[in-house]
């Protein structure tokens, strides 16, 4: 359900504004309303946006710089997430945080200096070494290729050389360079090249030393990479330089290891403090950045926002205790439609339903004042999922995998929610698997002799209860009972859509919108009329009057729909009939899965007839095809169950909220 909210306005004397903001921030329950737009629309110019005083603005600039600095330090130390000590972070946070910004900034600067003294040097050294290593690793293969070429050049008198590195796909440019450098050097040049790796080619331009400057000038404007060694190596003969490069490549990782050890010690020592500093700055800056959202007159400040009804009293008490009569908190009712549209939404569901709030990852929260449909999703989604997957084996795997994700990732809300939903879906898949008697397809049915193949090669189901002609039967084979399941899916569709439409009617009643109620009511009549009209396909012994009543209900529903929403209502009613048939996917998706599972079993069985080798192939085929079917079996039913909710059911009533409740709250060192 949607938590009831209260709209509040807090007015106080301007001299306590900053302290009042701090108390509100401490309470952490107020979702701030940005008053900028409202103030802009006011005719009277007595109310303006609240502005920070100059000194406060200076602190903001300083804190912003400190935030960048601490962020950089955290990135450099890269602390492992699983070694954070929340209690330690909170303690450090409490030591640093102060309502006096100047004092807080001084404490932060002192702490950062202390940390920097110990970490700056190794961090810089590490960065330099990493740059050097990557440069040398790039040079090494190039030099190795160029070395034999330069040895040949060294034997030539008065000749000079320049090494180039070129992308292999542009190798053809060497011909152009050869032509142009030949012109510059009167033909006294040669280009020797060798491929370094799949991407680059090393080339050595050999030419008469007399033309050194001209060739250098020419290459400088040609956008080709000249291999320039680090200055300390550039003057050495290439074989010596290459040897030195190899030694450095071996040495640097060892040096890096030593630095990493000392950095790890520093990380362990300072991570909690750095995170506390980051959180402190974040909280203080959030408080500062909120200031322009508030209003002010010459004498008073105005803060407006929403908070859960149950948080009004504690907020009032906290403000009154600190400021007495210098501040007033007024609660205004939320009842107008425009108020509800602006009201931020927070959901308050029981622990089971809360996991299904995962649906709001792809949709906004429902609008304030409307019915929260999460419980509908929590009930129907796993049932739809189970109905489509419907296999004890697959269900077991999905439930176990989901449960492991749920337990192992309890600290990651999204993964934990997905794991829980998967677990419940898996359990329903097992329940429906038992109804269909499916365990990795028809495996259990064939093993128990319930499904056999006759002389014509057709599958025959020997029902334990009833027969293929009765509605009550067991097992409820999906292939054999396709038409029956189609009927069941349509009934489920009508029920599911009716739930959505009833929610729509409740929302309409809340908004006192009779037309809305009539439109949804008309659609309910059309859906149930349709069900009655086609019921004689399943129950031929029912009187013809049932079909007639069904047809009458459809007509009445369309008329009521027109009364509610004009021709749009009639169109919607007819579209809803199409929506009902969309629920056929509940059986169709499952059917595709059954056929694939059956194919996997048949192929594995056939392969198994070919001796030991055949059995191995059979097992591989069984695992691969069932694995594939399981992956499709998780993905496709999830998507289609989601779609049935978002399009067919929620589409009939759901109005998204404009804002999610995001309270103005300190991290308190927790994040």
């Amino acid at each position: 359900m949607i938590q009831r909210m209260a709209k509040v306005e807090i007015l106080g004397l301007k001299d306590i504004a900053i302290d009042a903001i701090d108390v509100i921030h401490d309470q952490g329950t107020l979702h701030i309303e940005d008053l900028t737009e409202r103030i802009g629309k006011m005719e009277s110019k007595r109310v303006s946006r609240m502005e920070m005083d100059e000194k406060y603005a200076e602190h903001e600039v300083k804190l912003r710089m400190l935030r960048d600095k601490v962020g950089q330090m955290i990135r450099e130390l890269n602390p492992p997430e699983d070694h954070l000590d929340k209690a330690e972070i909170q303690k450090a946070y409490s030591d640093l945080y102060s309502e006096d910004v100047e004092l807080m900034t001084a404490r932060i600067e002192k702490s950062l200096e202390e940390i920097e003294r110990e970490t700056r040097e190794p961090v810089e050294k590490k960065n330099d070494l990493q740059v050097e290593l990557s440069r040398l690793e790039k040079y090494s293969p190039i030099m190795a290729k160029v070395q034999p070429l330069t040895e040949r050049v060294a034997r030539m008198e008065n000749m000079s050389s320049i090494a180039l590195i070129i992308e292999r796909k542009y190798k053809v440019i060497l011909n152009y360079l050869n032509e142009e450098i030949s012109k510059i050097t009167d033909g006294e040049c040669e280009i020797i090249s060798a491929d370094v790796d799949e991407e680059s080619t090393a080339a050595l331009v050999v030419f008469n030393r007399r033309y050194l400057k001209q060739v250098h000038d020419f290459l400088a404007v040609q956008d080709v990479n000249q291999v320039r060694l680090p200055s300390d190596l550039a003057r050495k003969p290439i074989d010596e330089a290459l040897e030195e490069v190899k030694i450095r490549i071996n040495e640097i990782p060892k040096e890096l290891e030593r630095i990493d050890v000392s950095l790890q010690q520093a990380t362990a020592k300072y991570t909690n403090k750095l995170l506390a500093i980051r959180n402190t700055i974040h909280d203080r800056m959030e408080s500062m950045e909120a200031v322009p959202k508030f209003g002010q007159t010459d004498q008073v400040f105005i803060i407006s926002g929403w908070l859960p009804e149950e948080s009004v009293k504690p907020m009032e008490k906290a403000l009154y205790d600190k400021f007495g009569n210098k501040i007033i908190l007024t609660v205004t009712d939320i009842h107008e439609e425009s108020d509800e549209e602006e009201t931020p939404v927070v959901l308050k569901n029981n622990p089971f339903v809360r996991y299904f709030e995962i649906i709001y990852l792809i949709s906004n929260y429902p609008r304030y004042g409307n019915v929260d449909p999460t419980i509908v999703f929590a009930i129907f989604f796993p049932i739809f999922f189970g109905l489509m997957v419907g296999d004890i084996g697959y269900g077991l795997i999905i439930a176990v995998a989901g449960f492991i994700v749920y337990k192992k990732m309890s600290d990651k809300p999204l993964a934990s929610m997905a794991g829980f939903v998967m677990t419940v879906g898996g359990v329903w898949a097992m329940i429906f698997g038992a109804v269909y008697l499916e365990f990795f397809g028809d495996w259990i049915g064939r093993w128990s002799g319930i499904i056999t193949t006759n002389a014509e090669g057709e599958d025959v189901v020997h029902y334990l209860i009833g027969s293929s002609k009765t509605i009550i039967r067991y097992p409820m084979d999906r292939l054999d009972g396709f038409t029956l399941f189609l009927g069941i899916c349509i009934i489920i569709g009508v029920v599911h859509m009716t739930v959505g439409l009833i929610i729509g009617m409740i929302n309409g009643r809340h908004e006192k919108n009779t037309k809305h109620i009539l439109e949804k009511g008309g659609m309910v009549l059309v859906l149930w009329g349709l069900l009655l009209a086609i019921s004689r396909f399943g129950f031929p012994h029912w009187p013809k009057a049932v079909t007639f009543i069904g047809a009458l209900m459809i007509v009445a529903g369309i008329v009521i729909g027109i009364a509610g929403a004009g021709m749009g209502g009639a169109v919607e009613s007819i579209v809803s009939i199409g929506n009902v048939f969309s629920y056929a996917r509940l059986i169709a998706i499952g059917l595709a899965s059954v056929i694939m599972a059956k194919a996997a079993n048949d192929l594995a069985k056939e392969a198994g007839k070919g001796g030991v080798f055949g059995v191995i192939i059979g097992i591989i085929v069984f695992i691969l095809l069932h694995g594939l079917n399981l992956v499709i079996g998780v993905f496709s039913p999830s998507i289609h169950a989601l779609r049935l909710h978002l399009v067919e059911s929620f589409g009939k009533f759901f109005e998204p909220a404009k804002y999610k409740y995001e309270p103005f709250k300190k991290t308190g060192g927790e994040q």
Partner: protein
Amino acid sequence: MGVAVKTGLIAISAALAISIPALATAIAQGRIGAAMAGAIAERPELVGTAIILVAIPETMVILGLVIAFIITGLKTTVK
């Protein structure tokens, strides 16, 4: 008309019932997929919506599959 011809016609009808909507679905999904790929590049948070939108035209092929199944069921009534 012989049983074999009737059975053949039923099989062709069932094949058409699934294949034509399958093609239509493929065309629609291709277009939606391409559009959503562009949209996701701009706004990655639209992934969930994209999955739902891509699944929407699947109704055609699913109903095609249902009709194909109903048509193949006619086989038993051929005399």
